[in-house]
Structure formats: structure tokens, C-alpha cells
């Protein structure tokens, strides 16, 4: 097995015997951030802030630099407006709580829905799934498997039918059966395809016909191995559907998901969940301090 070295360890060594954060330390910091997909702009901004802090605080040792780093990076991340979601609680006045799940192709939308259904059910909530991806081959079959796995009912129609109609039915069934949560899957779509983005707006409007304040949540799923394009995804999906939260998937790989820092910061959208595997248990509620920690740990190629 390869020896893995914590980035902060590297910084520590670079700092040994030095009383100031010099060019070399900052270069190392830059490399670590960029290698985690944080992006040039955010990296430059962060380094600038750290230089400033170091000057102001009369920085002395590496432990303090670590703390400053963590604080500055965590500050970029928006906090979710409610803590309830940590226990998979839903607001009492929003019943059913309708979650519309969106994102580009293959990021993990359907799987995340399966995991959410599992977690909501475990928290004692009744859940309905809506199979509004009627486009991709066997998408409905895939969600059906998740509905069976989690023991949660699914509302579906034939492939090729109108996704808005499926969403409408799902919310209606949620209301009729007194469900707590309705999770609606949508087809993957690239954010630069205007007609597909317009379709999302349509799904939204149709949902509102059943419940005017729904969807209560629009969850944008981002693949943790995506690079700078995630910013554009966030921009376009936000414009089309007023994204309220983010789920970052596939963080069980070696990708660090650093682009989320830039996304959360630029758009003020909180990250709520992270995906760390393909099984239904592999969803975690996002913890920004752990995330920041993981950004710096263990470059397997190092």
C-alpha cells in the first residue's frame, strides 16, 4: 500500500523553522486546493484571505494555520436554513414535503432518491416515489427496483409519457394517502439544452397545480468527480428551477468534490447530503467540517 500523506503534513514540513507563511507554503496550498477541484478563482480568493489573516493575527505556528485554513474554507459553505433535515424531519406545515431531484446525466439522481427513501422511512416517514424520468432506457425499472428495496410505493407511467403528468400523479397520490414525503426523479439533462431545462420549469408548474407551495425542495445532484463545469450546472439549474439544496455523490472515490466550495459560495446553496457508495445506506448528511478535513487528506498519488 502506498503511503498517504496528509496535505497539512506537507504544509507542516514546509513551515518547519519558519516564522511566516512564505511563497512556498502558499504554492503548496494552491496546489492542494486546485487538485481538489476548488478552482482557480476560489483558490486565489482563499489564499488572499489567508495571507490577510496571517498578517493580522501575527500567525505563529502550523496548528494555527490549520485552524485558519479550516475556518476560511468552511466560511465559504452556506449553512442550510433548517437543522431538521439532519434527522430526516420534515416541516409539519408542508405535508407531503415534495422534493424534486434534478441534475445532469449519470450523476446519481435515482440512486440518491433510493437512499433518501430509505432514510426517510427509517425516520418513520411515509414516502412516495415519482418516476418522472420517462426518457432514459429502463429508468422506470431502475426506480422500481429502489421502490422494492426500500418498501416504498412508486407512481409511474409508461416510458415516453409526459414527465409532468407523472410528477402530478405522484404529488396527488402523496396528498391522497397522507404521505410525508414525495421524491420525484427526473431524467438527466445537460444544462445547456434549453428545451430540456424548460421541461423542468414545466414539471415545477404542474406540481404547483396540486400543491401551490411545492416543490418544497429542489435538490441538485452533483457528481463529486466533476470539475469546473459544476459551476455552470449550478447556474443553469438554479435559473431553471430555483435549486434549494445540493447533494454531492461518489465521494467514496478519490475525487474531493472541491468544486462544491465554489458552487456553494457563489450561489449560496447549502449542501445537504453526500453520497458515499451505491447502497441505500451510503448517504450521509453533510458536515462541513468533515468535508473541509477530507479536502486536505490523502492524495493517493502523492
Amino acid at each position, binding site marked *: 500500500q502506498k503511503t498517504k500523506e496528509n496535505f497539512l503534513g506537507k504544509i507542516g514540513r514546509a513551515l518547519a523553522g519558519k516564522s511566516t507563511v512564505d511563497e512556498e507554503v502558499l504554492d503548496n496550498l494552491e496546489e492542494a486546493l486546485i487538485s481538489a*477541484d476548488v478552482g482557480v478563482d476560489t483558490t486565489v480568493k482563499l489564499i488572499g484571505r489567508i495571507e490577510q489573516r496571517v498578517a493580522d493575527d501575527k500567525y505563529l505556528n502550523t496548528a494555527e494555520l490549520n485552524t485558519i485554513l479550516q475556518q476560511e474554507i468552511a466560511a465559504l459553505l452556506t449553512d442550510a436554513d433548517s437543522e431538521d433535515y439532519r434527522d430526516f424531519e420534515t416541516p409539519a406545515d408542508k405535508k407531503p414535503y415534495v422534493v424534486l431531484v434534478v441534475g445532469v*446525466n449519470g450523476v446519481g439522481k435515482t440512486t440518491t432518491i433510493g437512499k433518501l427513501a430509505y432514510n426517510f422511512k427509517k425516520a418513520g416517514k411515509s414516502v412516495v416515489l415519482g418516476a418522472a424520468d420517462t426518457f432514459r432506457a429502463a429508468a422506470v425499472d431502475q426506480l422500481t427496483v429502489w421502490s422494492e428495496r426500500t418498501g416504498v410505493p412508486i407512481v409511474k407511467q409508461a416510458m415516453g409519457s409526459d414527465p409532468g403528468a407523472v410528477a402530478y400523479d405522484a404529488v396527488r397520490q402523496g396528498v391522497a394517502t397522507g404521505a410525508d414525503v414525495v421524491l420525484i426523479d427526473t431524467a438527466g439533462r445537460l444544462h445547456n439544452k434549453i428545451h430540456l431545462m424548460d421541461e423542468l420549469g414545466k414539471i415545477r408548474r404542474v406540481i404547483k397545480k396540486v400543491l401551490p407551495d411545492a416543490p418544497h425542495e429542489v435538490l441538485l445532484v452533483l457528481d463529486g468527480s466533476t470539475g469546473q463545469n459544476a459551476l455552470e450546472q449550478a447556474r443553469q439549474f438554479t435559473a431553471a428551477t430555483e435549486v434549494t439544496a445540493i447533494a454531492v455523490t461518489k465521494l467514496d472515490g478519490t475525487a474531493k468534490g472541491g468544486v462544491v466550495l465554489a458552487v456553494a459560495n457563489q450561489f449560496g446553496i447549502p449542501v445537504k447530503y453526500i453520497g458515499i457508495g451505491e447502497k441505500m445506506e451510503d448517504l450521509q448528511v453533510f458536515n462541513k467540517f468533515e468535508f473541509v478535513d477530507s479536502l486536505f487528506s490523502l492524495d493517493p498519488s502523492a
Partner: protein
Amino acid sequence: MFESLSERLETAFKQIKGQGQITELNVASTVKEIRRALVDADVNYKIAKEFTDKVKEKALGEKVLNAISPGQLMVKVVQDELAELMGGTEEGLDLKTSPTVILIAGLQGSGKTTFSGKLARFLKQNRHKSPLLVAADVYRPAAIDQLKVLGEQIGIPVYHEPDQKDPVLIARNALKEAKTKGHNVIIIDTAGRLAVDEAMMTEVADIKAAVAPQEVLFVVDAMTGQDAVNTAKAFNERLDFTGVVLTKLDGDTRGGAALSIKYTVEKPIKFISMGEKLDTLDVFYPERMAQRILGMGDITTLVERA
């Protein structure tokens, strides 16, 4: 999405010019700007660094310093170097053996199953082959159904074993079936896997050993970030793949991951996938990819104007 590289460089050089003479020293800051543009396009940080060091050397040789528009000349140098690095001419598939075995592998959600369908269609229509698709993903919910639906759409049979949990056996049986039924190509779709998943990486290596494919194609999402290098390296170590497939190029990503992979594993990019429909497959053009990474349209006219 991003300011184009040429704009960024023009600005950088203008600032330098304002200070008086252009020197080797302040060319360094322009090189830094190029590096940032590459990293913005998701080119790996270390590779971008090595690359720009080379560019700097070459640029100084080409007298960028005295050019009327050093920014544009610099872009030209970068463009040429990039294109060269992305790899000369198009590389086809090795289809001499019958049946030709093609193994498809990659991360979760990268587009393997869709590409398998596209490739089967392409080989049937453009190369007059009789392909057999093989459903060797036994994990993902409805993975077999997905391939079956695609197979139906293009009229190509799909080999599958609903109750078989061992993809190695499925692949081996499929090869037998292809021989009996006279298929001259088989395309094996495998489950998505992470490079750090030891058991899954061993599994795909076992599939390879069992069917001795002529082509092993590594499918990668063009939107991938800095980690592309690690993933490609890990898959290549285990599979020694014969080519790369870049997917989702119908998006607006710059696709710098392509460069990083090419640079790291030195394997040709053989196909690009640009849509969800099965007729959206194309061969790979290095220059176009280079231009895309830099974020510019017609570089030649720019340089001519300079």
C-alpha cells in the same frame, strides 16, 4: 463559460507592455495566466505546469516578445503544442479477429452502457458487422433492462443471464454464444466501478483475462475534474486499455480531462460521445479538442490578424 484564453492573454500582455519592455521575466506572468486557463478547463494542475514550462521555452524561441500581438502568437504556440499532445491522427478499432472482443469499463455513470449501444450501432451500420451486446453489469438496478432496451432500439441482440451473479462467467458464455451464432464482434458492458475498489477492479481484470479482448475501452465523462488522472492511471494499470472514449461532449465543458488522460496514460482517444441518442457517436479530432480546451473558435484568423 469562461473568458477565452486569447482575451486573457491579450490583457496580460497589454499590462506588461504598459510597463515598458517585455522581458523574459514578465512572460512568466503570462505563462501563469495560461496555466490558470488550462486549470479552469480542468486540465490537471501538475500537467498544466509541465506543459506551460514547455510552452514558455518554445514561445521564447519563436520571438513572441517582439511580435506585434504577443498574446495571440502565444495562443498559437499553446494551441499547436496542445494539438500535438492530444495525439496525431484518428485511431480506429482493431477488428481483424473474429469475433472481435471489445470490453467496456469505467467509473459509475460515465456512459458505458449508452456507449456500448452506440458502438454496436456504429459497427453494424458503418462497418457492416454483426455485433452481440453483452450485459455483464450484475449490480446496478435494471442495468440489464437498460441494455436490452438499447439493443431493441437498434435491432442488435443482447446476451444476458438473469440469474447469473458472476460477470466473468457471463462474458465467457457470451463469447461462446457469439461463436455459435456467428457474431463477429462482441461488446461487453460492465458495471461502473471506482478505481479504489479493489474487489471490483480485480473483477474487471478477471473478465479481461477470461475473454482476451482485442480492444479495452475506458469510458470517461468529459466533465471530470482533476481526479481524471488518478482514475485513468488506475484503470490503465489494471486493464492496459487500448483506447479512451470521452462522453457527454454535447455539454459545455472544456474537457481538459481529455488532455490529462492522454498525457498520463498515452493511449489514443478513439471516440467521442455527444448525446443520449444512439446515433451521436463521433471519431475524435485532436485539434478541435485543443481549441475547445482553450475556449476559442477560430484561432487561425485570430493569429492571422496579429
